[in-house]
């Protein structure tokens, strides 16, 4: 799903495309505290845009400004070409699913979902139909007469999702929509979200803590930290070319070697680790100066593990297996280097381990290496 989205409509690469949500220089301060700091962002029609970031970094605040519950201290937000500054929440073409669900406790599930449709003055028959459809989608048809306090956490979440989806808004803001769902329902709902996005052309802005969810769901991801965007890009860009150590660390796991640039050319860079024990070779140039402090980052699945010394000299490390985590499809090896640093390596289990023996055992001496193109050079 995301693949077709990426190839067919990469609006953000098209300089003529008009963004659907247009955010410029938006800052939000609470008293002296800056929750969102001078943010610029364009989101295009039909995107499924993920906001990713640690707790308290300003994701909800940004969403609330889009929904109209907070007024930006400065900056402009426009949706579908209309400046939203003076538009009250009830007139915005936006629906939000709240982090705390915000179900009306005195209405049953059916009436909760129907509330928005009633405000639009739809006919009783149409309301009944659409509510029924929506409840069927979130598998809550049998619960339509229940009050919110009679529902489990996951059920509440599904009602909240149904309530925000049923109005088919132009923009749907979801604040951690799938957190309380079990794996099966979560995947199903993710699929359904992408389906709705395809079918109705709804633009989604989704807040999530879960980087895996962000990777599978989104057309693009913005990684936030302390009220600012650290990086905005497609899941692949964010994963393969993180801009900072923070982003690299936040998305997936990564091994980070601190070092200094010793050779710096248009076609390659050489970095010596801080304790001079290791030498890293990268087959691409970078805008760094000789002697500057950098970090070489390698994803665990990009590292090869072998019992015998590998042929190529560069990017080679020796260590001792300290820990093996068997996950079925892959095994995670934690290898201790001489310096005491732990390197994580993911090895696909291509053959079945014989007699319970793995590619390498505990306390075995192993060699690690990777392609010269696999490592990421980070300067901050």
């Amino acid at each position, binding site marked *: 799903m995301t693949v077709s989205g990426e190839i067919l409509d990469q609006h953000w690469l098209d300089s003529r495309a008009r963004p659907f949500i247009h955010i410029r220089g938006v800052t939000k301060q609470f008293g002296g505290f800056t929750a969102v700091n001078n943010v610029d962002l364009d989101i295009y029609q039909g995107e499924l845009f993920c906001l990713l970031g640690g707790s308290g970094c300003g994701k909800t605040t940004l969403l609330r400004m889009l929904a109209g519950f907070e007024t930006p201290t400065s900056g402009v937000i426009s949706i579908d070409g209309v400046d939203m500054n003076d538009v009250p929440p009830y007139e915005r073409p936006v629906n939000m699913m709240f982090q705390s669900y915000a179900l*009306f406790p*005195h209405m049953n599930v059916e009436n909760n979902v129907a509330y928005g449709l009633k405000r639009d003055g739809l006919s009783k028959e149409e309301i009944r139909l659409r509510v029924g459809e929506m409840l069927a989608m979130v598998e809550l048809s049998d619960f339509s007469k229940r009050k919110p306090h*009679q529902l489990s956490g996951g059920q509440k979440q599904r009602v909240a999702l149904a309530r925000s989806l049923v109005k088919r808004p132009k923009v749907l803001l979801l604040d951690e929509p799938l957190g309380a769902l079990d794996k099966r329902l979560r995947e199903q709902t993710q699929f359904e979200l992408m389906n709705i996005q395809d079918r109705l052309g709804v633009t989604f802005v989704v807040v999530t803590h879960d980087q895996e969810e962000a990777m599978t769901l989104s057309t693009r991801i913005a990684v936030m930290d302390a009220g600012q965007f650290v990086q905005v890009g497609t899941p692949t860009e964010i994963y393969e070319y993180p801009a900072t150590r923070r982003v690299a660390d936040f998305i997936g796991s990564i091994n980070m070697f601190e070092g200094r640039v010793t050779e710096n050319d248009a076609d390659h860079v050489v970095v010596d680790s801080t304790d001079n024990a290791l030498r890293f070779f990268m087959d691409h140039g970078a805008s760094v100066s000789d002697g500057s402090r950098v970090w070489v980052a390698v994803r665990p699945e990009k590292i090869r593990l072998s019992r015998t010394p590998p042929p190529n000299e560069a990017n080679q490390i020796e260590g001792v297996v300290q820990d093996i985590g068997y996950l079925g499809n892959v095994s995670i090896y934690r290898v201790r280097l001489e310096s005491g640093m732990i390197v994580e390596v993911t090895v696909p289990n291509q053959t079945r381990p014989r007699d319970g023996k793995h590619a390498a055992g505990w306390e075995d001496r192993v060699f690690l290496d990777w392609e010269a193109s696999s490592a990421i050079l980070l300067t901050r």
Partner: protein
Amino acid sequence: MVKRGSSTFLLSMLCFGMAFLYVPMFLLIVYSFNNSKIVPVWGGFSTRWYKVLFESEEVWNALALSVKIALVNASFATLLGTLAGLALVRFGSFRGRTLFGGMVSAPLVMPEVITGLSLLMLFITLKEFVGWPDKRGFATITIAHITFSMAYVAVIIQSRLTGMGTTLEEAAQDLGARPLRVLVDITLPLLAPGMLAGWLLAFTLSLDDLVIASFVTGPGSNTLPMLIYSRVRLGLRPDINALATIIIVTVMFAVAIAGWIMMRQQKQKEREMQLATTGDAQ
């Protein structure tokens, strides 16, 4: 481990405290059945004072006046107090908000005699200039009661609104409800328990009040507390004991019924919870 000595001490303190609270009431009830006209002298069992009481038109009038005032007061105080609470919590920071907030809650801390006195001054001044109220009684007492019980309602509503948070109202707005709709659909239903509590509090405060009512009443308009007080001032009277007994029994019944209703609601809730958890299996 609780030492035996300390538990005996606690127990005796408890008994002492309970006795302090309930022995007087018990005495009151016992002496209301006293045949003798002089209260502390036991003259045998009799219900004659109840008969005296029921035949006294004065008592019935006072009771009717008190209840009438309490009902009107509770309704108006709930209405005004709710509006004041909403204004203070939901309308952000308008000009004069702090002053308004202080003024709303001032009657809570003002000595009753001052409230009573100032209201009396108001009514006298009003009469001087606009010719109303020409007779003090039901209307003046009700107005006086509304001014102070409204403050209690406003406090209850304020705390409930603050505790409720704004998320639900935001959710309704988000779904397209204009502010007035939000008020009717979401805020007021959620405030209903608070408003009921406020109404009951205003009702009992009014029924209870002696000081303020005495200030702003006129000749011939006696509320029940005023009647009791004026009669007892001339010495204890057995018919007043009977009246007090009736009041105690009524209150006891009211409390018991309220407890029973609350227990039933609790049970209902538990049943619903059980339904919710067992219904989960899909």
